[in-house]
């Protein structure tokens, strides 16, 4: 599934490069050098956005190239998952909004990095 060019364009300010990757029939957006919120360490790491529902039951997922240090504890339930030839990390977070716009999905996942619960 291809995403509209204008929606991909909206992601570009958040990272150095956006590219689409596919694996197992799913489409992922590789966000190279993704900017993270101020309280996170590191400030930048690679991200992998899966905008649609997957076998994990989440309506979307944002994977990180490393386990990010966050202001609040999170249940990092994805450790070194091998996706698109790279290892990825993710914490348990379920989006409940119905937004399908890529930048909206990304912002919700980024906001989850700074929230208490």
């Amino acid at each position, binding site marked *: 599934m291809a995403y509209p060019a204008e929606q991909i364009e909206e992601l570009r*300010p*958040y990272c150095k490069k956006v590219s689409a990757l596919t694996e197992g029939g799913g489409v992922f957006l590789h966000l190279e050098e993704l*900017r993270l*919120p*101020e*309280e996170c360490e590191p400030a930048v790491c690679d991200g992998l956005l899966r905008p649609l529902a997957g076998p994990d039951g*989440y309506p979307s997922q944002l994977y990180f190239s490393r386990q990010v240090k966050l*202001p609040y504890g*999170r*249940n990092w339930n994805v450790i070194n998952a091998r996706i698109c030839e790279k290892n990825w990390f993710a*914490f*348990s*977070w*379920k*989006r*409940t*909004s119905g*937004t399908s716009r890529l930048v*909206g999905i990304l*912002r*919700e996942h*980024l*906001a*989850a*990095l*700074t*929230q*208490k*619960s």
Partner: protein
Amino acid sequence: MESREGEVDIFEHSQRGQDVPDGLAYRVRIDGEGFRIETRHPTGEQLLQTVHKRPCAFELIAEFVHHKNDVVEPKEQVDLRQKGLKGFITAHREIVTIFINSDPYQIERGQRTVAEILAKVGQSPEGYDLFEEKNGPPMPVSPDRPVHIHGCEIFHTQPRSGGSS
């Protein structure tokens, strides 16, 4: 008393108690530094821009001889030939303007909470996330951390969604 390619120095005329003659441009002191202004009637905003400041964070004050000061509003035009005008100073506003979802709102400068900022648009941290555009794309602001407001900050809000599962 013209110099520098037809510039009239308004400070020098004010010190001599003289009327300011018409000129191609005017030498105007802002915060003690001289600038060339090429119109007789600049607005407050134009003068602030000259010193790379914006009315959402700073106000402009006209200084006259005999210690008389007047605040110049951003859209107000100043007559640089008015007698006694020495120049201008800038001052950080106490009540500054911030932008939320593209609309301007007034708020007190200093440490503010996310709840105070969201309240300006009738929202709360329970229902909305706050994002700030600062040297890049809008990034989330932690609802539990104070936000330092200087003026001119740009915020966006988005309905809050999701939680740990």
